């Protein structure tokens, strides 16, 4: 009896538990956030959860710390993403160019940074970045090179954090591009060889154009993760020194769980959500046009 019922309604019964989960854990919280973003709710200021209209959004527009966070977010994302894509593709082409023993071992090593717990990794970089006792500045000193303040300096903190992100996630781009390379058809390469094209010509005219869809998906994946980077920034600087590495994610976190301004934090979330979804849709859309 029950099995027959399941048979007949498999189409919606099978996904039903997941749909309920999505409704309770994703859709409802998102709606709740949207509602809260119009309220003045704050535990620290002792304001109750009452609607105040678009006041939070108006306040945000004149909030210097918000604009600072927007700038920091895009600076970090652009820097990390650009270098990860460039390095990731280059390393993949390098690994693919020759056959040698130990290729499997190199693949294993590529896997390590992105699987390691980010907070644990952040702690190691914290020790290495240490301006006086750290190993990086020690080596730079031995080589008589300038020794930056790394995460302790307001100008160098974001590039330093980007360096950690690059270390962690460049291998993902490499692995994706390597997988993309094995999936390419052979004929264009044979044609290029017959025509006497050099390695660089083949790379520029054949390999890279055919890899473009793969690279753009890898880029989108990195954009989505870079823009919401939390673990390494929070664990290493907490947004400091001052607010010089405070990204949107960190600022929202502080508004919500440090100041307990739930209303204001919700307005930040709505804006953050809109930016991420907007750019992602834009990239997906332009990619589709690119392929047609």
């Amino acid at each position, binding site marked *: 009896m029950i099995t027959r019922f399941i048979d007949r309604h498999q189409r919606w019964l*099978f996904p039903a538990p997941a749909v309920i989960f999505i409704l309770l854990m994703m859709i409802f919280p998102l709606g709740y956030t949207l509602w809260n973003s119009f309220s003045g709710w704050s535990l620290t200021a002792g304001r109750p959860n009452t609607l105040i209209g678009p006041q939070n959004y108006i306040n945000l527009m004149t909030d210097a710390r918000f604009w600072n966070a927007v700038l920091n977010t895009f600076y970090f994302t652009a820097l990390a993403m650009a270098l990860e894509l460039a390095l990731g593709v280059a390393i993949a082409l390098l690994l693919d160019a020759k*056959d040698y023993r130990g290729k499997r071992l190199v*693949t294993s090593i590529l896997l390590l*940074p992105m699987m390691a717990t980010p907070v644990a990794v952040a702690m190691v970089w*914290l020790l290495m970045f240490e301006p006086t006792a750290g190993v990086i500045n020690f080596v730079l000193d031995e080589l008589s090179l300038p020794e930056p303040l790394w995460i302790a300096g307001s100008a160098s903190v974001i590039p330093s954090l980007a360096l950690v992100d690059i270390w962690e996630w460049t291998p993902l781009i490499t692995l994706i591009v390597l*997988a993309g390379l094995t999936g390419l058809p052979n004929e264009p390469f044979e044609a290029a060889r017959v025509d006497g094209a050099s390695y660089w010509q083949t790379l520029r005219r054949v390999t890279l154009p055919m890899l473009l869809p793969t690279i753009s998906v890898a880029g989108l994946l990195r954009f989505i993760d870079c823009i919401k980077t939390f673990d390494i920034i929070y664990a290493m600087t907490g947004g400091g020194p001052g607010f010089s590495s405070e990204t949107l994610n960190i600022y929202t976190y502080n508004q919500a769980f440090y100041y307990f301004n739930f209303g204001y934090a919700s307005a930040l979330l709505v804006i953050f959500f809109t930016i991420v979804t907007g750019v992602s849709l834009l990239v997906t859309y332009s990619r589709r046009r690119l392929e047609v």
Partner: protein
Amino acid sequence: MATQSTNLTHRPRRNRSRRLLGNLLYALVLALVVFFLLTPFLWMVLNAFKTPLQIIKLPPELIFQPTLRNFENVFGTQNFMRYILNSVIIGGGCTLVGLLIGLPAAYSIARYRQNRLAVVILMARMVPGITFLVPLFIIFRRLGLIDTYTSLILAHMLVGLPFIVWVMVPFFESIPRELTEAAVMDGASALRTFVTVVLPLSGPGIVTASILSFVFSWNNFMFSIVLASNRTRTVPVAIYNFISYAQIDWGGLMAAAVVITLPVLVLAIITQRYVIRGLTAGAVKG
């Protein structure tokens, strides 16, 4: 499926010494990449076995008398065993429940082309976690669920479920429909077909999905730091708490980092083939 290497290195050899130089340069660049990737791990392990004085000593010693004090501290005074247990319960719970609701959903998406549902689930992967975390914190606080396994498992499922669906949908799509149709012809119910025909064929996919779900739950920091407290504190939060003291205990910190990352890295290397397939799935067509 031939690799491209044969196609790209087709130039006739000019002379031996030039090729040797090329190989040498190649090896050098490769070594540089490997060195960059491995140095932080090397530093983590080295300093985990050093005393505080050895850690701040310059130039750093690469060969020294190792001490186990840091690890004794981590497991003794810091009670790390408890945090590891918490992380295993939460990671395991979020993976099990995730599979329980994710597998039938992924199967249904693959079979009935329910693309809209797939997009919504993958949204959880795209949307910043904090968008869910703030409202969930408020809701869980009202329900008295802060610092319980329930709230942490539910929150971590937001990380795990998208991976499970992401990996399983293409997997289920590749299972020939004739197989399931044959089972139905033999009179098996939908549920029976799914459990006795489809799932046994999906071993590698389920392994991949489970590993990714577990590892990313184990690594998760943001959900845990907000939702977990004394009773359910997970390992990333525990290690973060190390630096809240005035004087940073670098040795203990590095020992804790080794204890946290080692199991994940071992798991990742053992199941390397699956993990790579899972991480690159979707980005590469075909």
